[in-house]
């Protein structure tokens, strides 16, 4: 009975949204309402998730588990940002400075570390997988793409060389289209399985 109820809710909501893709005029108002309710639920779900994160770190501090100092920093930053946000509002200049002046340096530095990590990982790819068609194509494409991006390989406009160069620059698009079509097919099948309750995202059997 429970399974039928949850399946019916999923199917009903899904069918209305799908119908809205094809018949926008009659289903427009219902779709707006469904999206708004969904947005509210996602927001509440986000709050629950963030609450769980805070609760986890409070437990870490109380039980003085390994890394509790980091948890204390996280919790202090969380509470400071939360209280400052509600008192000053997100539009306040100080609050925006606070968020941006922490976010930008930390995120840019993390991206900078990624350069070293990527270089190491690409060399590991060759060491662990050996010279396969994938690894050869990967390395060759990476090197040529960087040379192209740096503008080191150039030809005169309107020549055969330019056409050949353009052909090589278009090559990565071919695999990308295949990957995108594959992902879309996968998404379509998964969506249909959810809607028809073949899969149960809520975990019920």
């Amino acid at each position, binding site marked *: 009975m*429970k399974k039928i109820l*949850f399946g019916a809710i999923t199917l009903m*909501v*899904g069918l209305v*949204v*799908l119908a809205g*893709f094809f018949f926008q005029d009659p289903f427009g108002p219902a779709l707006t*309402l*469904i999206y708004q309710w969904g*947005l*509210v639920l996602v*927001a509440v*779900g986000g709050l*629950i998730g963030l609450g769980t994160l*805070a609760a986890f770190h409070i437990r870490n501090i109380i039980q003085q588990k390994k890394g509790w100092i980091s948890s204390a*920093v*996280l919790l202090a930053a*969380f509470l*400071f940002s939360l209280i400052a*946000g*509600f008192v000053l509002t*997100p539009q306040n200049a100080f609050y925006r*400075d606070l968020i941006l002046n*922490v*976010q*930008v*340096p*930390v995120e*840019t*530095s993390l991206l*900078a*570390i*990624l*350069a070293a990590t*990527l*270089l190491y990982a*690409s060399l590991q790819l060759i060491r662990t997988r050996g010279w396969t068609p*994938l690894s*050869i*194509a990967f390395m*060759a*494409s*990476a090197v040529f*793409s*960087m040379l192209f*991006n740096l503008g080191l390989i150039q030809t005169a406009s309107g020549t055969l060389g330019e*056409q050949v160069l353009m*052909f090589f620059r278009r090559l*990565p698009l*071919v695999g990308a*289209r295949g990957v*995108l*079509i*594959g992902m*879309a*097919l996968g*998404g379509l099948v*998964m969506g*249909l399985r*959810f809607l028809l309750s073949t899969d149960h995202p809520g975990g019920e059997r």
Partner: protein
Amino acid sequence: MTSSAVIWGVIGFLLTVMILSYLIRDSLFFRLATYLLIGLTAGYLVVLLVNRVLLPQLIWPMGAASWSQRLWLLIPILLAGLLLVGQIPRLALLSKIPLAYLAGLSAAVAIGGAVFGTLVPQGQAVLDTFDPYRIYADPQLVWMRILDAGVMILGVVGTLSYFHFGQPLQETKRKRAEDRPQILQVFSKIGEGFLGITLGAVFAGVFSTALLALIDRIAVIGGMLGQFLGGL
């Protein structure tokens, strides 16, 4: 330079050094900086979710709406309440109702996005390479356009074949059940090459961006040190 700019600059400098210390080893400084980012961002997210979604969608309309509109607003409040109450282990079943709603919504959006956002435009782009008007637009480049179309269809079919892991429904002559049909094996080898080319190009893009970020951070550190040393 104003005093607030100096303070923010020093904070940015310290955070940069703390994060980049990871290049030497995973230290406490690195963890503190990342936890600080997570804490601040989590708090900011709560403020945004309440200020931009919950207040304007649920609370403020409650005060201004008519009775019939308030009844409609009760539905998301009820669903949100069920989601919250479902966090209590004994009442976990109740949260399945809003989750079923979200599953239906996200599945339909995923189907719509997959079909109208990806399958149709990407399929159209593949077919467009076979458009005779495009092929014969420039008589001197006909062979190049034909080569383009051939490579496109070969690459797309090959890439899709690489990810094909279906099992045969009936018994076959193949030695092992996990072996794919020979035609698929050939195409998947071709697809492997195309996939490598794509991943290599993506890698080059991400690597260049990350390298630029590294240069930017080194410039920030250099600039800050220069200012301090210049001021001494």
